[in-house]
């Protein structure tokens, strides 16, 4: 085939998708950077030039940095719990168990449901006098707890909902990984007389390291955007106890209409997230692969 014709084919495959994505994402993003250098707000809308004034404001904005710390704790906390639970559940329904397929379907369901819609349902569950959470725990002598009205409990409630929603995602990836594992290493371990615990730490866990890293990173990326659950469950409250960075920027930008300042917050948030997630990804590879392959 002609060299030129081949080049055309190559581009025809890639370009439609690439150009559309560039148009939808890159230009708006560049525009946000420009907006972040303006004083655009509800009183004076428009692209004037404010220099780095907004960024200086972000630097001194304690509420922003607190929201970032809170977000990091909640994201890392929920993702770790999701990973441990998802791994345990995947191991439980991996092999010999009755009604295996039923359990698998059941454990997948939460990730299919719309997070905000389920959060509205969770809000009725957490209702202190009319919801079932306190009622059911009362049967075993616990509670009542102030699910959404005390700072600590509100954070725990948001995390609980996130764990309910997204543990299935970890479960799905890890179970898919388990199912695709070769049999030989397990036979070898059995011949060596390794018990289930040693088999897990010497065979299963190392073999699933790549899947584990991938699953944890994907979930961390998604968890770093946490805001919808917060919006529905607590609106960031009580006070600012559950206010995540996304939710804080939402208040500043789309409620108070400080567009310029919210854009500066957004860009700062994005840059910090990219840096943190890259570092975490590198660390994870080191933790899981360790000195074994390097």
């Amino acid at each position, binding site marked *: *085939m002609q060299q030129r014709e*081949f080049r055309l*084919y*190559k581009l025809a*495959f*890639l370009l439609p*998708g*690439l150009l*559309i*994505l560039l148009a939808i*994402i890159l230009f*708006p*993003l560049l*525009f*946000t950077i420009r907006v972040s250098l303006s004083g655009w707000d509800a009183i004076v809308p428009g692209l004037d030039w404010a220099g780095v004034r907004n960024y200086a404001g972000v630097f001194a904005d304690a509420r922003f940095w607190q929201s970032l710390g809170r977000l990091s704790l909640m994201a890392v906390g929920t993702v770790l719990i999701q990973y441990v*639970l998802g791994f*345990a*559940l995947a191991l*439980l329904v991996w092999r010999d*168990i009755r009604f*295996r397929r039923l*359990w*698998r379907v*059941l*454990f*997948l*369901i939460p990730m*299919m*449901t*719309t*997070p*905000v*819609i*389920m959060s*509205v*349902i969770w809000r*009725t*569950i957490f209702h202190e*006098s*009319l919801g*079932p959470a306190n009622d*059911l725990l009362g049967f075993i002598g616990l509670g009542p707890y102030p699910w959404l009205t005390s700072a600590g409990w509100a954070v725990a409630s948001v995390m609980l909902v996130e764990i*309910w929603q997204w543990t299935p995602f970890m479960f*799905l*990836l890890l179970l*898919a990984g388990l*199912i695709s594992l070769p049999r030989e290493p397990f036979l070898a371990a059995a011949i060596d007389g390794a018990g289930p615990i040693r088999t897990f730490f010497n065979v299963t866990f190392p073999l699933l390291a790549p*899947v584990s890293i*991938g699953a944890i990173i994907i979930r961390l990326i998604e968890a*770093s*955007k946490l805001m*919808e659950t917060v919006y529905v469950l607590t609106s960031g409250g009580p006070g600012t106890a559950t206010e995540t960075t*996304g939710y804080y*920027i939402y208040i500043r*930008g789309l409620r108070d209409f400080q*567009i310029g300042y*919210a854009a500066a917050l*957004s*860009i700062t*948030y994005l840059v910090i997230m990219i840096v943190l997630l890259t570092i975490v990804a590198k660390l994870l590879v080191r933790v899981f692969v360790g000195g074994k392959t390097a």
Partner: protein
Amino acid sequence: MKSLKYILVVLWGAFVVTPLLWALTTSFKTANAVTGGPTYIPYLQYEPSLAGWRSLFGGAGGIDIAKPYIDSLVVTLSATAISLVLGTLAAYGLSRFTYKAGFVKNADLVFFFISQRIMPPIVLSIPFFLLLQFLNLLDTKIGLVLVYIALLLPIAVWIMVDFFDGVPRAIDEMAMLDGCSPFEAFRRVVLPNSLPGILVAGMFCLIFGWNDFFFAFTLTFTDTQLLPVAVVALNSSVTPWWSLSASALVSVAPLILIAFFVERLLSRGTLAGAIR
């Protein structure tokens, strides 16, 4: 040991179904049954009523679900279809050919697609708002479809690149030796062998499209209203719990069916090839 296993799966299973069962029983309650405190079993603990379910079709105190349902279906399905087509093409190119423009190579291009997932919705919402305003597409389905393509295309590219990497190159090379153009080789030989990958990519697109709330919430107002926005609009201090529960169940039902489908792919081992 063995019974411990069953105790654990039953416990987690109970945790998983609790919110759904609670919504189911609440959807049959009346105002009196709700304010009387938490009850679970109809007839025994409260007198069931169909008021919540009737409210879905224009009854009092709820939302008319038909229009948002259709809007959600149209937007999600269109965005999924377009993302799958564009994503599959791009992924095939990235898997089979070498691209080079300056320092940008294939791996960088793949990374560019995938990295879009890092973008928090809030960061994009302000420029999207202004962009759609400029294009006169605020509060329209077309505007939302555009935005959702940006969300779903990375997922489609990601899954399909991995998938195509697993399809032997020999099959398209054979087709091209037989005189097919690269596009014909792709369409006639590679595509028919890639259905499992496309299915998985399509399911993930459907899940993320159908379940989005934030963009639908910030970019549409009255003419277009998607399901999650319509349902969340019921969330207030005087929430009619029965209509809320009924509309929530109706909204999440179609994707719960996908869980059965995913399990089937998973147990057959198809997913392992598609997600890595």
